[in-house]
Structures are given as C-alpha cells and as structure tokens.
C-alpha cells in the first residue's frame, strides 16, 4: 500500500489537481482550447526540463540553463538586428547552447569541479555575456523579424467535423518533438543506458569500460542545446530578447525533474515523468489564475506541492 502510494502518489496528485480545477471551473478548464493553451504555456519550460533530464540522470545538475536561454535569445536577436536571416540567428543561438554546454561538461568532467559550483559559475558568466552583448537592453520591435515571432503565434489548423477549428500551436509541437527525441535517446540507445549506469554507480560504470568523461560532456552539451531551444522559443513568444528573460526557467525545470523523480521506483529521472512534473507546474499556474488566486499564494502552493510530492515518496524509504 505504502509502496503503491510512493510510486503513484505524484500521478494521483496530478489527477487530483486536474479534477479539482475541472470541478471548480466547469466551463473553462477541461476544454480542448484550454489544454492547447496550457501545452503552449509550458512548452518552453518543458523543453528545458526534458533536456535537463540528461544531466540529472547522471546525478548532475545544470544551474546555467536559465542564463543560457537568455543568452540564446540575445544572440539570435542581435544577429537579426544586424540584418542576418532568421536561419543564421537561430543557428548561432543553438551553437551557443552546444558550446556553453560543452564548456559546462569540460568543467565538470575534465576539471572535476562539482556540477553545482561549475554551473553556478557559468550561470553568472552566461548572464554577464548576455548583458554585455545586449548592453543590458531589450531588443524588440522592428529588429525581430515577423517570421521569427510568427512561429510562436502560429500552429497547425485542425478541422473537426468540418466546423470546429482548433489550432495546435507550433510551440507545443516543437516541445513534443523534443520529448520524443529525448525519450528515444535516453530509453532506446546505449548512450542513454550508459548515462543511467553512470548515475547508478559512477565508479562501477567507469570500471566497466563506460567512457564516463566523454559521455558526461555530451550530456551537458545536450542540456545546453535544449536550453538554447527553450530560449529561442521564449524570444519568439515575446517577440523580443532581454538578458534576463530566461532566468525563471532554471528552478522550474529542476523542480519538474524532481517531481518526476518521485514517480520512479529507484528515484531516477525519466523523461516521461518529467513531463508530468512540467504539467503539474503548468496546470497549477493556469488553473489558479483562472480561479483568481493571488499570485503569491500560488507560489506558496507550488512550493508546498513539490515538498509534499518529494516527502510522500521518501516516507516509504524511511519506514523501510
């Protein structure tokens, strides 16, 4: 009984949250339109959290994802403002993410700095770089091409019964694509299995011939890449780039992975569980706003729910 609660407590909690909002917002919550809204609202966080799972699988952290997201947006916007095409700006931003991620990996796996300290350092560096490149200003307006900002407003139209038209936002589709890719890599390739092996026992994995240093570098690079994608999605949604705009993503992404970890027997991060974590955060934001709950109370609630989830999954461990 206790182990069942431990395993499924978070999922049950999520379903209870959904049921609660459905009950209290009978007309507006459980609608296709609202769920499409939610999917779009969480898409940026989802991408950052999905790719954060790569490093958390190994028991590592990346605190620099928020600054990287900001830096990626600034990089693209700066190139746009100098007349480069959208593709060039996007490519440069993504390259920045991979490079920054490799740098994190280098610090952690070659120099052996603790991930918490290493990525705290790069958090500050990336943030400083974003401020320096942008002069601390927000880049917006005519500098941001319509094709770039239009992406976040567009979607695939779906007609149901010839009349009811729904638009699946591109942002949501992109998040789903990233989810599928991360799931494939982590669950279906030897690369993914080796990452889990490193997380299980670093020394054992190394002695078994896993190239731990190289794999750790690669995992950090993937997390950086994901942060850059998230940053571009954010910049597209607000049609502007600001050197601090991604900073909120980091804590939420880690919280989402933690929430997800409470759902696995071994306490390992699984990307589908991370999705549930992201959904919990997104649904709470959406539902509580619709119920007109004060935004500060909302923050307290979100924190309490994370603690409850983690506590309920560790209660069992303690009793055993």
């Amino acid at each position: 009984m206790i182990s069942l609660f431990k395993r499924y407590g978070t999922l049950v909690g999520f379903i209870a949250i959904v049921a609660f909002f459905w009950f209290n917002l009978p007309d507006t919550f459980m609608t296709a339109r609202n769920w499409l809204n939610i999917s779009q609202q969480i898409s940026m966080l989802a991408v950052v959290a999905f790719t954060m799972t790569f490093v958390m699988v190994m028991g590592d952290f990346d605190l620099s994802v928020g600054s990287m997201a900001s830096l990626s947006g600034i990089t693209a916007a700066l190139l746009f403002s100098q007349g480069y095409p959208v593709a060039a700006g996007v490519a440069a931003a993504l390259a920045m993410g991979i490079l920054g991620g490799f740098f994190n990996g280098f610090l952690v796996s070659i120099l052996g700095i603790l991930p918490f300290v290493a990525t705290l350092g790069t958090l500050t560096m990336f943030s400083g770089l974003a401020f320096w490149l942008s002069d601390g200003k927000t880049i917006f307006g005519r500098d941001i091409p319509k094709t770039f900002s239009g992406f976040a407003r567009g979607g695939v139209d779906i007609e149901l019964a010839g009349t009811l038209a729904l638009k699946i936002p591109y942002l949501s589709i992109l998040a789903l694509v990233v989810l599928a890719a991360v799931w494939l890599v982590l669950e279906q390739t030897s690369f993914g299995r080796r990452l889990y092996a490193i997380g299980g026992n670093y020394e054992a994995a190394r002695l078994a011939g896993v190239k731990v240093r190289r794999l750790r570098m690669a995992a950090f690079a993937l997390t950086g890449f994901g942060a850059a994608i998230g940053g571009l999605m954010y910049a597209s949604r607000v049609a502007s780039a600001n050197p601090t705009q991604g900073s909120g993503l980091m804590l939420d992404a880690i919280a989402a992975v933690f929430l997800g970890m409470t759902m696995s027997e071994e306490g390992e991060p699984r990307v589908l569980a991370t999705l549930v974590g992201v959904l919990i955060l997104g649904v709470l934001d959406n539902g509580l706003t619709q119920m007109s709950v004060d935004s500060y109370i909302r923050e307290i609630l979100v924190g309490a729910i994370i603690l409850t989830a983690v506590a309920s999954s560790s209660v069992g461990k303690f009793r055993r």
Partner: protein
Amino acid sequence: MRISKTLKTIAGLAGTMVLATGLSMGLAQAASKVAVITPYLAQPGTQFYVEGFKAAAEKNGWETNIVDTAGDVAAVISRLEDAVNQKVDAIVINVDPQQVAAGLEVAREAGIPVVGMDSGSDPLLATNVTSNGYAMAAETAVYVANRIGGKGRVVMFVFDAFPPVQIRGVVADAIFGNFPDIKIVDRVTPDVQDGGIADSRAKMEAILAANPDKGSIAAVWAAWDQPALGALQAIEDAGRSDEGIVIVGMDANPQARDAIATGGNFEASMAQDFIGIGNKAAEMVGRLLKGETIREPVVYVPTTLVTSSNVADLD
C-alpha cells in the same frame, strides 16, 4: 475510528470545494471580473498604479485579480490567455504591449478590452493611461525661463535614444527657442550605464571649467533627475552654488526631492501621479464595461511641479 476520521476529512474537503465553487459562481454573477497582469509588481511605481486601481475597483464592486509574473514577460502572455479563457470582463496590463502582442491578440479575438497602465500605446489596447511627457517638459522648461527672466545661458541634458525622454527634449528646445535672449550652451547626452549621475557630473564639470565667469551659466535643464543631481554635485564642488544657477530635473525621485527640500540650486522637478494613473485606468475600464468606446489611444493624468514650497506635502 480511523475510517470515520478519513471520511470526515473527505467530507470536509468536499464541503470546502463546494463552498468555494458556490462562492465563486455567486460572485461571477454579481460582479464584473477584471484581471490586472504585470511582471513588475515589485517596482514602486507599479505598486502605486495597482493600489490606485484596486481602490477604485473596490468602490465599483469589481472582482479584481492581481497577477504578478515576477519579471517573466512570456508568463504575462500565458496569464492573458488564462484570463481570456476565464472570460473576464476586462484586463489591465502594465508591460510593453509589443512584447505581449500574442496574448493581446487572443483578448481581441474574444472581444475582451485591455487597458494599459503606463504601457505605451498600441492598436491592441483600448487605451493607455499615463503621464504626459510633453506637458511635463513644458512645465519645467517654462519654470527655468521664468526664473532666469527669459535671459541667460542654459545647459540641457537630454537622451534622444530613448523615445519617452526624447519627447521631453523636443518640447524644451521649442520653449527655450521662443525666448530670444536664452542661449543653449550645450545639449549634453550623458552616458547612462552607471545610472547617469556620475557621467553627468563629469560633463558638467567640463562645462563649468569652460565657462569660469560668474553668471556665465544661468540654468541647467535636465530631462530626468539623475543628470540634474550630477550637475548639482559639480556646481557645489566647484564652489559655484552661490551664483544662483537654477537646476531642474524630472520624475521627482526621492534623491531629487531631498535635494529640492534643502532649498539649494536644484529647484524643481515633476512628480507623476501613480495612484491617479491607477484610478484613471479603473475609470476607463468602467467606461468600457458600460460598452463605451474610448476615442483617445492615450489618456493623460495630470502631473505636479515639485518645488521647495510643496515637496514636504508629497508622500
């Protein structure tokens, strides 16, 4: 025993939920719902706008929901979508409308009016309530012209790269240009990376050195408070505070108010009525809720000239 306790808890929870539902449904029928969404609630100006708005909204019996996204502009779009989905009657924002256009378009499609509080005007807003930068600049420039008797050499501190400050400079140019005996010594654009005080002070020191004679500078007109404060420091340090050089700033920040209160060279600044902007925004929402259309894309709230005579009365 244990089961009955659990049952009680469940019954209690269900009761609370039903009560909450009933309550929110009851209110929904009785009152108009207005969502106020901003990423900047931690900033003093925004707090005053929201305070003013809330006070007026309470009088009208509206159900207001204040949403602060703690600096997150994309979250403003998300919360706009939520508010539209929740079918609120009106939305008020305090954020650059261009950055949240994606959310404003959703509101427009749903026919929900959005009012800006010092947001910048935008076709997607029903109207924007703010202070009139043109009028503020006119008031301080005329103050200077009158104090120096329409005659003398004036130093201007401007910042044309930032549109809200650029319009202040244009108006001051026009007013000084209308006095044949006022001559502009220099039109300085200070470096604002350090906040604007230090570089303005350095620029003013150079101008004082180039104009060493007593009375060769009659006044300093600054488009905002920081350069005025820098100029004040330069004049005091050069030992020229007894020449009667008149300094004016704008925005009446706390540091400027202190300087004005001491009765020295820094004589005047302009205070915006932040609470009044919140009140006026509520008035606009009220008109929109009655089905009126607001013709003015921007609605201005009067500002106050702050001098040593009234600085103590302002809070």
